[in-house]
């Protein structure tokens, strides 16, 4: 099938849906885009959804239009958020609270001198970061970058060390046999199996990443067990990912057939 035929098929399919929707709304079975602003929004959202889904057949101009629009809108949205949520209240609002309060946004008029000094530091560092665009002295931009990296490392290090290391070690040190008053031989067999899988799975996975000793003999066997544990983990993660993606597809199909076309009842 050549490129032209593929394009014809995609355009034909999208066109068919649009014609169906027009006839369907003319018959009063769904809201036409001319009825209200929200109906027009729903039609446009449906068009964009179909355009994105058309990529499943093949690359085409509808898909590229929807993709470019999404990227553009996202970039614009985050830029506006950055200006109105960060720059104006957190920096300008501290440097010139009177002006900001009068012309831009509601901010506290009384600012602590330390906060004002910090805002000035932020302004200087922000300007230095933009120095990267200058024709000369682009190395200057590395200084504010160093501050950002340093802040992130300092902030996260202790919390990761506590939450992801020390607090994770203690739950791994568990008894291998779970006692039970009522179960056969006084052992909770499910609990024991869980404890065994947890402890030996953890050890096997750790040994797989222990490269100081060659993985031969007993260590090699345990290391192979570690690969199995990792593969099962990746499989579970992939299964969850599939579930998540299908859930999003269900959401889009609900929108198309229930909210937009209204051929399926809510």
């Amino acid at each position: 099938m050549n490129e032209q035929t593929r394009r014809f098929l995609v355009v034909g399919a999208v066109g068919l849906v649009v014609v169906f929707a027009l006839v369907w709304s003319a018959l009063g079975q769904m809201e036409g885009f001319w009825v209200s602003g929200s109906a027009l929004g729903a039609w446009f959202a449906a068009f964009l959804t179909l355009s994105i889904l058309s990529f499943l057949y093949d690359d085409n101009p509808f898909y590229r239009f929807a993709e470019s629009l999404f990227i553009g809108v996202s970039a614009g949205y985050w830029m506006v958020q950055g200006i109105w949520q960060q720059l104006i209240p957190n920096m300008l609002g501290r440097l010139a609270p009177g002006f900001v309060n009068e012309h831009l946004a509601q901010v506290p008029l009384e600012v602590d001198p330390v906060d004002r000094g910090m805002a000035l530091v932020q302004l200087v560092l922000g300007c230095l970061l933009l120095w990267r665009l200058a024709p000369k002295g682009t190395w200057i931009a590395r200084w504010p970058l160093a501050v950002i990296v340093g802040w992130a490392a300092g902030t996260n290090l202790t919390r990761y060390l506590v939450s992801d290391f020390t607090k994770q070690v203690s739950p791994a040190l568990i008894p291998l046999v779970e006692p039970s008053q009522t179960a056969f031989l006084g052992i909770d067999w499910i609990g024991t199996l869980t404890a065994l899988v947890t402890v030996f799975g953890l050890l096997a996975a750790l040994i797989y990443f222990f490269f100081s000793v060659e993985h031969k003999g007993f260590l090699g066997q345990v290391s192979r067990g570690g690969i199995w544990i990792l593969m099962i983990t990746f499989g579970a993660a992939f299964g969850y990912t599939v579930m998540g993606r299908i859930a999003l597809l269900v959401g889009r199909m609900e929108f198309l057939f229930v909210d937009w076309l209204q051929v399926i009842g809510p």
Partner: protein
Amino acid sequence: MERLQAIDRRWIFLFIMLAVVIPLAFDLTIDEVATPEVQAIYDRIEALPPGSNVLLPFDYGPESEPELQPMADSYVRHLCRRKQKLFFMCLWPTGQAQTLKTVDQVLEQEFSDYSYGRDYVMLGFRPGGQGVIQVVVTDFRTLYQSDVEGTPIDEIPMMQNVKGLKDMDLILNISGGFPGLKEWIQFGGDRTGVPVAGGVTAVQAPLLYPYYPRQLSGIMGGLKAAAEYESLLIQGYSEAYGTETERFAAIRRMGPQTLAHLVIILFLVVGNVAYFASRGSSGERLKSLEK
């Protein structure tokens, strides 16, 4: 068999689409049984005395709405039934719109006795990710001088006795990514000792299970867990929801989800059978050529 291996991927897409649309059309639903980690959240809320302070950070956007909005709605329904005080906030700018959606469609529609400022407050979005959590651990007022409507925090009755995160009885987060539940555990729960629980997208769930049950009181991963929670609500509050299951979006979506999974499993099995069968026949062909 070789033809099966060379099947056009677009046929698979078509089958998946049909597997999603047909159960939607026929309203196919499946009975859900709650897993322990979902039951733990339900039990935790049930155990809270009425009037407890519950922080609800909604850290997600419309891109993960099909999975997470049912969780948000269920949490609010459950908390309102238990007469808790709700403090909404978000670390994502898009979270505010999602909060409004739940407040408009669930809280104000179904719980008319709930009053703004007395029973619930929307603190809104503040930029800074985990930095925001670090600040509100000690004092909300450092970042939140006013709520989303511009009302000064000190004029809001339910904020009178709230200073920092330690004044909360539960942090119930809904997370679509970073910053989200992981950051609430690391910077909020682990630091203050306030119990943390929450719902996340299915993609994040495997990364958060290691925190359960010591650092995370309960976890809901994806649409399946949302449907389990909804079924718990229907069972627990049958007098309110017994005959109105159509308002529970996750249960409705689990029919298409299950059928789509079955189709994927079917294609996996068929693909593997075709692969091994063709490998066997090509091996025999090689042997005959060698002879």
